[in-house]
C-alpha cells in the first residue's frame, strides 16, 4: 500500500473512531439486559448490543491488520488495556442510558448513521473494509427496521411515550453533530478512496431520519437547523464526557485484574 505516514495515521483514526463508537454503544445497550420494559425486547436489545460489539470487533481486527498487529489478540489490547482518554468515541454513545425512549432513540439515530455510512464504505478502495461493510450492512438493515418500528410506536403511542421521546430528541440531537464532524485527517482518507466524507454521510442521514421522526409525530422545529453548542467541546474526538471514564473502568476491571490470563 503506497501511503505516507500522515495518510496511514488518518486512516487508523478513522477506523478507531468507528470501532470505539460501536464498542461503547454496545456496552451501554448491554446495561439494559435484564431491565428492558418487556422480556422479548430485553432479548432483542441485548442482541443488538452484541451485534454492535461484534461490529466493533470487526473494525478493531481490520485496524490491527492494517497496522501490522495480530488481529486475534490486538483488539483485546485496544479494548481492555487502553486508557479512556485514548478512546475516539463520540460523546453521543458515552451518555448514560436515561429512559427507554432515550436509549431507543439513540440507537435509532446511530443505526441510521451506520446504515448510510456502511453504504458509502462498501465502495472503499481498502477492500477488507469494503467487504466487512457490505456484510455488516445487511444486519444493520434489521436493526434499523427494529428501532424505527419502536420510534413510531413510542412517538404515536401514549401521551407519556410521546413526551419522553420528544424530550429524548431534544437531549440527543445536539450530540449527533459530532458523528459528522470529520476526524483529523479525514480529507486524506477521502482522497485515498478509503473512506467517505462526513458531509455526504450527514446529508444521507438527514434524508433518512428527518421524515421518520416527523412521521412519528415528533416536533423537529428549530432542532433540524440547530447549530449545537460547541463552545464546551470542539468537534474532535479527543474530548469526552466524564461518563466515558466510568464506563471504561468498569469494562476493563476484570481483564486488568489478571492481564495475562487467557479467556
Amino acid at each position, binding site marked *: 500500500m503506497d501511503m505516507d505516514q500522515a495518510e496511514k495515521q488518518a486512516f487508523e483514526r478513522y477506523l478507531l473512531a468507528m470501532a470505539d463508537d460501536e464498542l461503547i454503544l454496545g456496552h451501554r445497550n448491554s446495561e439494559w439486559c435484564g431491565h428492558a420494559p418487556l422480556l422479548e425486547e430485553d432479548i432483542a436489545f441485548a442482541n443488538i448490543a452484541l451485534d454492535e460489539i461484534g461490529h466493533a470487533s470487526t473494525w478493531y481486527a481490520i485496524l490491527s491488520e492494517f497496522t501490522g498487529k495480530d488481529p486475534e489478540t490486538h483488539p483485546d489490547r485496544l479494548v481492555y488495556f487502553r486508557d479512556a482518554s485514548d478512546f475516539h468515541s463520540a460523546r453521543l454513545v458515552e451518555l448514560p442510558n436515561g429512559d427507554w425512549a432515550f436509549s431507543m432513540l439513540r440507537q435509532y439515530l446511530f443505526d441510521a448513521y451506520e446504515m448510510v455510512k456502511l453504504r458509502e464504505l462498501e465502495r472503499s478502495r481498502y477492500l477488507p473494509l469494503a467487504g466487512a461493510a457490505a456484510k455488516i450492512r*445487511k444486519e444493520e*438493515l434489521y436493526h434499523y427496521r427494529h428501532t424505527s*418500528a419502536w420510534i413510531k410506536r413510542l412517538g404515536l403511542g401514549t401521551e407519556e411515550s410521546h413526551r419522553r421521546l420528544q424530550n429524548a430528541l431534544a437531549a440527543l440531537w445536539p450530540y449527533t453533530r459530532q458523528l459528522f464532524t470529520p476526524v483529523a485527517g479525514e480529507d486524506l482518507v477521502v482522497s485515498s478512496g478509503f473512506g467517505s466524507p462526513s458531509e455526504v454521510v450527514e446529508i444521507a442521514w438527514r434524508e433518512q431520519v428527518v421524515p421518520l421522526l416527523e412521521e412519528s409525530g415528533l416536533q423537529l422545529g428549530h432542532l433540524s437547523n440547530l447549530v449545537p453548542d460547541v463552545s464546551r467541546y470542539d468537534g474532535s474526538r479527543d474530548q469526552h464526557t466524564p461518563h466515558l471514564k466510568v464506563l471504561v473502568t468498569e469494562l476493563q476491571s476484570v481483564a486488568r485484574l489478571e492481564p495475562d490470563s487467557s479467556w
Partner: protein
Amino acid sequence: MNDTQLPRFQVFLQEQEGQPHQDVGSVHASDAEMALQNARDVFVRRPECTSLWVVPAEAIYSRTAEELAKEGGEKKEAGGEGAENPGLSGETEIYCVFSKAKSAGTQTLVGEVQATSPAEALGEGIARFAGGKAPFAWWVFPARLITRSQPQDIESMFLPALDKPFRLSTDFHTQTAMREIRDRKP
C-alpha cells in the same frame, strides 16, 4: 390492577424451504409487526430459518382428540354447534391446519382447507389429513391472520446468525472441559 401484558402471538418457524412450518412458542407484542421482530430475536438464535409466521394466539382454534370425542357425544345430545368461532367471517376462506401426533410433539402444518368457520375447517382437516391415525391435537386458523417474514428478509433477519457461533453452546467447549475435570477425579 389492570393486566398490562401485551397480546400474545403464536410463532411458527420453517427451517428449510419445502419443510412445513412448526410451532416454536409464543411472544408478546403490541402488534403483528413487532411480534414478527420479537419472534426473530427470541427464536432464531440459530441460522436454520427461512420463514417465520406470527398469528394472534386468540385466533387459534384448538382441539385435542379427547375434546373432540367429548364434543362429538355432546353434539349428538344437544344437536348444536357447541364451539366458539373467533373472528368468524361466515364466508369461505383458507384455513391452515396443524396437528401434533403426541402430547409431547410439535404442532406442524399439515395442509390448508377452504371453510366458513374454524370448526368446519377442523372437520375438513381431520377428514383430509388424519390419514387413519388419530393425532393428539389439532390447531386451525384463517390464513389471512398470518403475518409472514418475506423472502427478501432472509438476508438481514436470519442469515447473520450464521456468523455468530458464540450463540451456540458448542462454541464454548464446556463438554470437553467437563470431561477433563471428571477424568481428573481420583
